[in-house]
C-alpha cells in the first residue's frame, strides 16, 4: 500500500510532464517524479522498526546487521538527490534561455525549435 502510494506520486509527476504547457511546470513535475523514485528506492531498503545505520558507542557491528536498515540504497539515493539538483539547475537555465528567446514559457508557442 505504501509502495502503491509511492507509485501514485510518480504517476502524478508523469501526468504533469505529459500534459502541461508551461515549461517550468514540466520541470516541477520532473522534480516530483524524482522525489517519488528516490522514496521508492529508500523504501526497498527499509526494515520494520529499523534504526539508522550508524554505530553508537560500544555497539558491535553484528547488532547493527540485526537491527539497522539497508545502508546501500541510502548511499546511492544520496548521490541521486544531489544529481537531481544539478539537473534541475540545468533545466531551469534552459527555461530561462527559452523565455529570453520567445518571451513566454508556453511550449506550444515555441515553434522555431529547429537548427
Amino acid at each position, binding site marked *: 500500500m505504501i509502495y502503491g502510494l509511492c507509485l501514485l506520486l510518480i504517476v502524478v509527476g508523469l501526468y504533469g510532464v505529459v500534459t502541461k504547457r508551461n515549461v*517550468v511546470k514540466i520541470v516541477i513535475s520532473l522534480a516530483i517524479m524524482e522525489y517519488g523514485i528516490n522514496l521508492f528506492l529508500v523504501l*526497498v531498503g527499509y526494515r520494520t522498526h529499523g*534504526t*539508522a545505520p550508524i554505530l553508537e558507542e560500544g555497539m558491535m557491528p553484528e547488532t547493527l546487521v540485526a537491527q539497522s536498515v539497508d*545502508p546501500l540504497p541510502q548511499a546511492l539515493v544520496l548521490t541521486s538527490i544531489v544529481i537531481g539538483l544539478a*539537473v534541475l539547475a540545468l533545466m531551469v537555465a534552459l527555461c530561462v534561455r527559452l523565455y529570453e528567446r520567445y518571451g513566454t514559457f508556453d511550449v506550444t508557442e515555441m515553434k522555431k525549435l529547429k537548427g
Partner: protein
Amino acid sequence: MALLGILLFLMIIGAVIAVETRNLLSSIVCLGAIGFLLSIVFLFLGAPDLAITQLVVEILCLVILIRATIHRRVETVAGNREFVGLAVTVVMLAIVLMLAISMMAGFPSLGTSVLDRMAQAPSHFYLLQGKAQTGVTNIVTAILLDFRAYDTLGEATVLFCAVMGALAVLRRSARRRPEEGDAGDEGEGGAE
C-alpha cells in the same frame, strides 16, 4: 506505518496541487512542501543523512526556481497541451499505474530488506566491516566516500558537467563580446 501513509498522502495532495494550480509561484511552493515532507519521511525511514541532504537540496531548488520565475510574465500560461486529449492521457496513466502496482505483487513486502533475505548481500559486508576498514561509524558515509568512492567521483563529474552546461546556456552573447564573461547566475546554486 499509518503515519508513513498519511505523510505520503499529503505528498500526493501537494503534487496534485503543484501540477494543477494556475499560479506558478504557488506551484513552486507546493514543490517545496513535497520536498520537506519527503525529508520527514526519510527521517522515519531511518535515513538521517538523506533527510539533511534533502532539506538543503530543497532550499536550493526553491531559490533557483523562484529566482528564475519571479520577474516573468507567468500567469498567462496555464492549461494543458492538446496532445492526444486529456481523457486518453489519464486513462493511459491509470493503465501505467495499474501495471506498476501489479508488478509489485512479486516484490518482497515492505519492511523486509535485503539484509533479512540474503546472507550474501553486500550490505552485510558494509555493515560488518565498515568500522574496521574505514574507521567511520556512519555506514552510509563509509559506503559513499570509501567503498563506492568511484560512484561519488562520477557524481561530482555529472554535477560539474551540469553546472558548466547551465553556465554555458545562461551566458549572454559570448561570440560578440568575449571579454564580457558570463552574466548568468541561476545555475550556480548547484555548484556547492
